[in-house]
């Protein structure tokens, strides 16, 4: 049974520090939602409250019809039927790949399964993450990416009501990150699994999610589809964090400008002087000085422009 999460007025303090200042959010069945924000924004705390690894100080958390946490109720993590993948893999070093994935079945007293049934389920989960040939290996005999696949298989094997991902890709190198990210998305869509991803990487959130919730200082700053947040950021913070936007003083007024909305007017000589250029493979990133703007303008263009040259820049509002 998949789940819909509803969170109302979630608060959490560590000592005197307010980590979550009253979070309201919901996640629909089969939806892939990313909690995106800088360090200390409270995204991991929300995930850990959902998992039951933290007890909220206030607020209510429901999954489907079940109340997971409120002032009076608290369902312990082992009873929530949630799969979770951790940043540091959390693959038990003294168990083989097979034993790691079989663990949830072996400790679940409510739904006892026969060894044959467990083997079938474990192998199916390993097959999903393409690790079947590695089932007898120990974690130290696997690469980081393979270990994270084991963690994913373990989380998926017990057919969880939802999948929680706590920065699962941040310890991997760039190539593996893209590969495993795509695989997570494929599995989530195949299994139609409600998934919540915690990340501080906007590219990860943009490429994987159905919806992004941006957090800042323990509060929700904005939420929406990746496209809407990227193209029309509702606040300066979202613009800066997701679209790399710049908030600048333009003729006495404060404006948020997105680098991808600048266009170089072909053939025209303007007042923006190129001061810096970085080659990104399929395009260039530029920084230009313009007397109308207090700070340097950041923009992207496919063509190579010499440093020191002045160009005319147009902003598409």
């Amino acid at each position, binding site marked *: 049974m998949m789940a819909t999460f509803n969170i109302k007025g979630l608060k959490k303090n560590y000592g005197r520090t307010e980590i979550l200042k009253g979070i309201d959010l919901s996640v629909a069945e089969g939806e892939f939602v990313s909690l995106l924000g800088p360090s200390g924004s409270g995204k991991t705390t929300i995930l850990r409250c959902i998992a039951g690894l*933290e007890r909220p100080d206030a607020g209510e958390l429901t999954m489907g019809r079940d109340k997971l946490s409120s002032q009076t109720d608290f369902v312990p993590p*082992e009873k929530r039927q949630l799969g*979770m993948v951790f940043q540091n893999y*959390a693959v038990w070093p*003294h168990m083989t790949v097979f034993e790691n994935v079989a663990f949830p079945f072996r*400790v679940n007293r409510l739904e006892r399964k026969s060894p044959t049934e467990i083997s079938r389920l474990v192998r199916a989960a390993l097959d999903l993450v393409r690790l079947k040939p590695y089932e007898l290996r120990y974690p130290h005999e696997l690469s980081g990416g393979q270990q994270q696949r084991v963690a994913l298989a373990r989380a998926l094997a017990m057919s969880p009501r939802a999948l929680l991902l706590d920065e699962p890709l941040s310890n991997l190198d760039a190539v593996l990150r893209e590969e495993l990210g795509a695989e997570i998305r494929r599995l989530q869509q195949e299994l139609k699994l409600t998934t919540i991803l915690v990340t501080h990487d906007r590219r990860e959130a943009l490429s994987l999610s159905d919806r992004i919730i941006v957090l800042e200082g323990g509060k929700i700053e904005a939420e929406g589809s990746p496209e809407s947040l990227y193209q029309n950021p509702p606040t300066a913070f979202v613009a800066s964090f997701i679209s790399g936007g710049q908030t600048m003083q333009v003729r006495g007024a404060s404006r948020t400008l997105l680098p991808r909305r600048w266009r170089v007017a072909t053939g025209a000589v303007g007042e923006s002087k190129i001061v810096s250029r970085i080659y990104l493979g399929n395009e260039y990133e530029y920084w230009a000085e313009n007397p109308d703007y207090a700070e340097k303008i950041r923009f992207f263009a496919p063509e190579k422009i010499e440093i020191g040259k002045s160009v005319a820049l147009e902003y598409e509002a």
Partner: protein
Amino acid sequence: MKRSSVGRAWIFVAALVIGVVFLAPIVALLSRVDNVVLQETLQKKTFTTSLMTTLVTAGAGSGLSVFFALFFARTFALYSWRAKRVARLVLLIPFLIPNFVLATAYVIAWNPGTGLLNSFVKFPFGLYGTWGLIVLFAVSHMPIAFLIFEDRLRRIDSSLREAARLSGAGAIRIFLKIDLPLVSPSIWGALALCFALNIAAFAIPAWIGAPERAYTLSYRIYQSIQLGGLDGFPQAASYGLVLFALVLPTLLILALAHRGGKKYETISAKASRVRVEEPQGRSWVFFQFAFATYHLFAWLAPLSMLFASTLVPRGCLQANGLACLSELNFLTYRYVLLELPETHSALTGTFIYGPLSALLILVLSLLLLMTFRESKWAVRSSELTFLLASSTPGAVIALGLIMVLSGRFGINLYNTAWIVVAAFMVKHMNLAFQPLRAGLDSISGSLVEAARLSGASRSETWRRILLPILRPELIGGFFLVLVPILGELTMSVFLVSPQYHSVGTLLFDLQDYADQSSAAALSILLVGTVLLLNELTVRLTNGRLGY
């Protein structure tokens, strides 16, 4: 996952009980100090002499330990060679073998009358008395200082030395200007630790100091009880108070050295490098020569004499010297194992109650860590309690336990083996608790969380995840505790009773009866057992524990 308020109250009560139980003997003894007797004791000339003997021998011994340890540790930390593990074991042997065995070996080798090595090399300034005490303290505790320095020197990024070298510094200058300042907090720490161990030692003063009337404070405590019985308690308590007062500042220095060590922590980033090189050149030749000479005289030659004296007819070596080596036999072992009436109870005491105490210590440590898992302050306060108890001189603990467990508080274990078990637990809890705590800390919290999310209860998580991962620490912790218990004498000598004897107390008696051959045979059996246990520890923990 936070605990409920009932859980927190339970943890508080448990931590409080641990504090009270473990520190009760110390408090009991110190509370027994009579002001008048204390004043009288402090004014006696014998006290001043004993205090001076204690301070001079412990201080000079720890200074020498640190000097040699620094010299050896540098080469071990920076260089790698083929037989390094064996060389390291050679260096650590005086730490592994009980102090009374080492003292017995020295007596057989260099006692002024019949010492077997006297005709080859005389012991400088005579074995018995102050000089002998200093040398034996230095030799027996040098490996502890070595372990501290080796660890610290290993952590120094090799680029710091390379930069000094490129600046024109030679090996000696690099050692003096780079290595030494970086390990300076550890030097204070090692000095304090060796000093604390020296002033609390009983076997070495009993074997080496007492024959020349060079009495240390710990020996004076023993004497007070021996001569005065229960009437000697107030005087023994006064000596105990002074001994305890001498240990406390060393604990403070240790704590400061630990903090200072953190300040000098040079390896924390991933980028730092520690390069281990092949040794070469004249300095390597000098090191090999110094290493061989030191260990030959420090323990190899005396221990060889100890071994030799067990293979010849009893008393022959003392009467006829090394000429007896033509009549090798195992009769002494036969006598000790089959004919000496006290052997059976001594072996039972050491090899039944020793492992039993180690097991109880391990189980209690584990139960406490399971209870306190989510309460850092409870772990820290227990750790501090165990550290304080382990730093307390054995004589103080033993006398304190006699007072607490003699029926005054409803429990009477006096004159039973269980009071010795209690003493081992108070003194050695720290040895098991610390590695287990460190092992538990090194397990990522997410491993536990993943298990809970998979449906495992708290107890199941312990049984299936934490205990299997902690297995090396559990095995290693058991042996780490067992080895010092097997070689314990300071507390046993006070707590010995018709129901409890140990190999240590039997050796002490044999020494008194001047039966050196039997003492030597028992010593060799004990050394063999300890070395075997060490090897087992290394193998069972894949080299993570043991030496």
